[in-house]
């Protein structure tokens, strides 16, 4: 097996434990600075949202005809980010791609946090968020029931399922590591970790159940990657808006989601391995493998772009044709150019070995892909309705400061949670690393 190529071979169990547990020691001053800055960002977002609740959705840029703005762009963006986490932690696990082990924990954490953030956006988006419980199928004397025909109801179900499964998967996977921390910890921390490691002793029966359970969760999470983002895509594809109403949307969105998620993994891993000295676990080979996958997803996404244009031409549907002509030539041309370049052209640079093995290139390109994928959602979500069926109603949309504030808040919240995570929980799976060191040897922890 080529598993070991992804990690330096002379790594010992002890070194793994030492390195990972070192990350949980008292943080430096710069850590607190980062925490404070991020929290301030979160406060900015919260203040913006509060202001919007009191004044009205109009403080954002949405209008007639563009009734959905950055809130839903960010929703789709964050759901997309979440998916590659699951891809790495679950799908690649099932495929026994060992190179995913060092980054699986961080990727799965990213999934959980990204889904949380994503789940926040539909709330922010609502005109009357205080009435959101109408979407829950709770028994009431008026016999009013939510409309399960609506793709937004699909969303409620899909996102909540996804959040539940991925959190359980994340937690289950973490159990042996939590016990490791418990064993080395003292004082208050020991108490907490005793509780959350729910009596893990590492005996054979526990390991047996653990590995089975982990496998099942992986198997359960895998179809969710496909289904959740398909459902998200149906928010658009089930509408009749030109540029949205197309059957390609489900696979196109799933590929896009993984594309952006992989880029986000690289964006997160590069600073992580640097700060916590994970270079020996998260090696260049691991990053290179992610980069190779990005080439693949980028090609799928590019193919989807081309297909959309082909279908517009082939359908002889003048509304569709005008919609796609305008997408490339209209007021939002910059978004289209960013989307095509960043998502389907720039990742091709990874064909060059030197580029995909240079940290600076990797980091830069991953950021660009993230930007490109954000603009893909912009082009689709805004562009479709801005130039819809009724020419008299055509109009443009521009996000406002409040929306940017909320967006800033969402990114800050994500990184805030992530930064908290790396200092409080093992950010690399010690268990899985150890499996790599000596596959088949006894399971000492």
């Amino acid at each position, binding site marked *: 097996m080529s598993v070991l190529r992804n990690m330096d071979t002379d790594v010992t169990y002890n070194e793994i434990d030492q390195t990972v547990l070192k990350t949980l020691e008292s943080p430096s001053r710069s850590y607190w600075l980062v925490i404070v800055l991020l929290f301030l960002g979160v406060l900015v977002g919260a203040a913006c949202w509060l202001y919007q609740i009191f*004044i009205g*959705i109009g403080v954002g840029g949405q*209008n007639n*005809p563009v009734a959905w703005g950055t809130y839903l762009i960010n929703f789709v963006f964050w759901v997309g980010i979440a998916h590659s986490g699951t891809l790495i932690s679950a799908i690649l696990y099932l495929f026994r791609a060992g190179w995913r082990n060092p980054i699986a924990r961080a990727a799965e954490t990213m999934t959980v946090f990204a889904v949380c953030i994503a789940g926040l956006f539909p709330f922010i988006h609502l*005109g*009357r968020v205080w009435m959101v419980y109408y979407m829950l199928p709770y028994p009431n004397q008026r016999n009013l029931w939510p409309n399960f025909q609506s793709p937004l109801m699909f969303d409620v179900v899909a996102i909540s399922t996804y959040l539940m499964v991925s959190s359980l998967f994340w937690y289950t996977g973490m159990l042996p590591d939590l016990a490791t921390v418990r064993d080395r910890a003292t004082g208050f921390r020991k108490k907490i970790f005793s509780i959350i490691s729910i009596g893990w002793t590492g005996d054979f029966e526990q390991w047996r159940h653990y590995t089975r359970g982990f496998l099942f969760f992986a198997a359960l999470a895998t179809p969710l990657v496909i289904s959740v983002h398909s459902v998200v895509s149906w928010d658009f594809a089930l509408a009749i808006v030109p540029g949205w109403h197309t059957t390609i949307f489900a696979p196109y969105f799933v590929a896009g989601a993984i594309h952006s998620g992989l880029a986000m993994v690289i964006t997160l891993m590069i600073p992580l391995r640097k700060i916590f000295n994970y270079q020996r676990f998260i090696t260049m080979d691991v990053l290179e493998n992610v980069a190779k996958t990005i080439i693949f997803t980028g090609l799928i996404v590019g193919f989807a772009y081309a297909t959309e244009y082909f279908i517009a031409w082939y359908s002889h549907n*003048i509304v569709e044709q005008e919609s796609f002509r305008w997408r490339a030539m209209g007021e939002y041309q910059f978004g289209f150019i960013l989307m095509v370049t960043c998502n389907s052209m720039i990742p091709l640079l990874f064909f060059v070995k030197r580029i995909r093995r240079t940290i600076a290139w990797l980091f830069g390109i991953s950021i660009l892909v993230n930007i490109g994928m954000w603009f893909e959602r912009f082009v689709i979500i805004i562009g479709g*309705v801005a130039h819809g069926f*009724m020419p008299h109603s055509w109009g443009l949309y521009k996000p406002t400061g409040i929306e940017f504030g909320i967006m800033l808040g969402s990114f800050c919240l994500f990184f805030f949670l992530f930064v908290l995570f790396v200092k409080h929980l093992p950010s690399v799976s010690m268990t899985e690393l150890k499996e790599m060191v000596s596959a088949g040897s006894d399971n000492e922890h």
Partner: protein
Amino acid sequence: MNRRTFLKIAGLGTISITAACSSQPDETLYSLVHAPDDMVTGQATWYASTCRECPAGCGVLAKNREGRIVKIEGNPLHPINKGKLCIRGQAAVQAIYNPDRILTPMLKESGKWHAVNFGQAEAILRGKAKQAAEKGYNRVRMITEVIGDTLHALFTDALKKWKSEAPLVFEPFAYESLKTANREVFGVDGLPSYRMDKADLLVVFGADFLETWLSPVEYARKFKAMHAVQKGKKGRFIFISPYQSLTGVNSDLWIPCNPGGEAVLAFGILKELLSRNMGHDLPEGIGASILKQLAQFDRTYVTKRSGISEHQYERLLKALLSSENPLVLGTPSAGAGPNSLQTNVAANLLNLLLDPRLTLLDFQNRHRVETAARRIDVLDYIESIRKGASDLVLLNNVNPIFSLPPTSGIKEALDKKSMFVVCFSNFWDETARLSDMVLPVRHPLETWDEYGGHQGMVSTLQPAAGLMNDASTLGDLMLRTAYGKTPPASSYKVHLLARMFDKGKVSGKTGWLKTLQNGGGFGKAAPTDKKFKPSTNTDIAKTLSVTESKSDGIRLIAAPSIRYFDGRGANKVWLSEIPDPLTRVSWQTPVLIHPDTLKKKGWKQENLLRIESKTGALEAPIYKTESVKPGILVMSIGQGHEAYGRYAKGWGQNPLAVLPPATDPASGGPVMSFHPVSVTVSGKKKNLAITSGSRIQHGRKIALTVSLGELISGGKGKKQGLDMNAFPLALPLPEGYHPKRDIYPPHDHDTYRWSMVVDLDRCVGCNACAAACYAENNIGIVGEKRIIEGREMAWLSVERYHNPDRMEEIVFLPMLCQHCDNAPCESVCPVYAPHHSKEGINNQIYNRCIGTRFCAQNCPYKVRRFNWFEWEWPSPSHMQLNPDVTVRAKGVMEKCSFCIQRIKSAHTDAKNEKRLILDGEVLPACVQTCPTEALIFGNLMDKQSRVRKLVADPRAYQVMGYLNTKPAVIYLKKVVQEI
């Protein structure tokens, strides 16, 4: 924590949580112990009155709910408007409940305003008038708007008591050239009305009879009586003018001519007709002298001077010669270029030649606006005030400082220290600001009066609302101040009644009550056998010469506005909020310029254009349009106020402020078009508050037309299929469903399936429906900034689509919720807020809406409107809100409800009388007011209903029907014809 602390915290916590979580406190509701006889809580009382928003004098019914007027509708019995109202009439109620209305008299002392009470103000007026009368003759002057006979006689009499002359009747649009031409040609110094409905061809030299000209609602109706397709026939309409007003857009052929070229063209046609030996009925020798005078007006000269092509000239002539009942109309009241009198004289002569008995002119029902003084007399009057020794000037509902060019001397005249100026105004307009005392009087809808829009007709006014203050009517004020201790009547109402009895217009008390109930006395006027004999001035030929324009440079035309009339509408917020029918720009006054001119000058739409004249300058954004001739700038009159309340002050631009002061020497009328000294772009940009995205429909089958020929021949048999070009009419009934295109079964409707038919051939694009909708449905006002952001709330917008091949051809498309049977909005809402009712209506349940806005995204017609904010109704404008319609809070979606409140009330009536709702019983606000009856509402399940019969029309189609939404709003294609 001890027990006490715990209890304290728990108690305080509970109180604060319950207090903070309760909803807004209920406002106190009072119930009347003794209600007035005609007031039943929860039920509307309707009072017949007369609209005074312009001199036309349409009959109105004011809907009173608990003492407030909530809506104004046309009076169906009234012969002028037959139950219909224009956009301005709909907005009339906004003067009563205007947040800027002055409620107490204001007195200016040493440059500062302070409030006085009505008694004091009246005493001041009485004293000043007495002093003036003691000083000598003609020391009290009065300028009034056009008013009814009774009030005018009272004013004259009162002024006589003060030893002064009769008041001056001032209207900014006074039809000087038309009146003069009528005097010259017919011997009548007045304004006959036109039997436009009897004509089969209209040739109009610019008169904007659908917007402001004489009596727009009346002429819109009469116009469609001749111009809407009926039994395969359709009257023809040719419009000749340098710019295409809304009226011109409705023509079959617009001939853009040079400003002033209308006269040349009319002369040319006159010559052609005379040389074809028409004109036997003209008095001896006139024909020959005219021919002699017009010797140079041969075809080449005419076409060159008027700037039209030979082909167009040929078409015009051919149409005139081939029609049986042609009617020629002259120039607009304002907006007329040079040679306006000549054009009108020639138009009158043409009528005389083509229809020697003048059957299409009605000299009995003359328009009352003819009593307005000529502009030249107005300027003389002002000059005499300025120079003379008057002591007191009374102004009744006129705003000459806004309406007259700055160099007219009006400012200097009213600013004289030695003179006391009293403004009987309810608003701080430009003139009121300059006066010495503002004495509010009752709004026409709070007044007893009479005003006949046509001479000789009785049309009554009565108070229709609870009063806002202690103001009296102007008639009462006059009775109390001018007559000392012996007034001719105790009140103006008594005076009015006595005079009506005297004149034999009303007989007996029951007669009076009946007149009041009907809104006037509309008995058929006794037909006079006396045939009208025109007495043409024998020197008429002399007037037939045109003045040469000295410069070919850019010319600015100030056009009257359908929304603001002469500017008096500018403080009614609906009129600013509802976009202009042609430009779809709201709140602003853009300059209309032809694309060729823009290209030549390197200007772009939304550039700020600076226009300078000798008297002033203004800056306005450019709007690109093919509706004007190259080289012409058109701006509409009415905005650009420096005062007049929050909705008028500072919005838009006033082209009158840069007009030269000169009057046309021949007719004494104002000149509304001139060459500016300089026209430059300042490099700045101003975003247009435009509600239209694209001007064309991109071939999407939205606003369709059919040629008359094709309609008669029945066209080719259409193959039915599923694509855009072959999709059939899919009715919102079970029969509209077909397994080939539908998966889901049809809806089950209960007795009714409400539906609307929109006849595009009848729609003139006047936007009265939009105003009625704002009034009926409590639609929020968003303002210029929000409209630029795209947040307008109109439930009904009259979209205008240009023909991409010939941009001057426009189709209007009233777009409202289509109440689809297969509604895209219904399926996507997660909480069932859009709900399909048993009667087919797509109800929006505001309480259920959580604001996902998916419905608006999925609506292909884009008729759903979201409440982005909490909209404001500054006090007391909220008093107009319709109590039958919810005022929507922020965060919910709303849209056209087919006026569900009216359907529900019809249900109640029908149930009480144990019957079904009758066809035509339910009239949504838009349908009710449409002056041309382009909108028809009814039950599709009733095989005998009008809508049901109309959907069988070969012109019937659904907007983007190929989406298979099965809309319940069925459109009838506009019928176009080539001339």
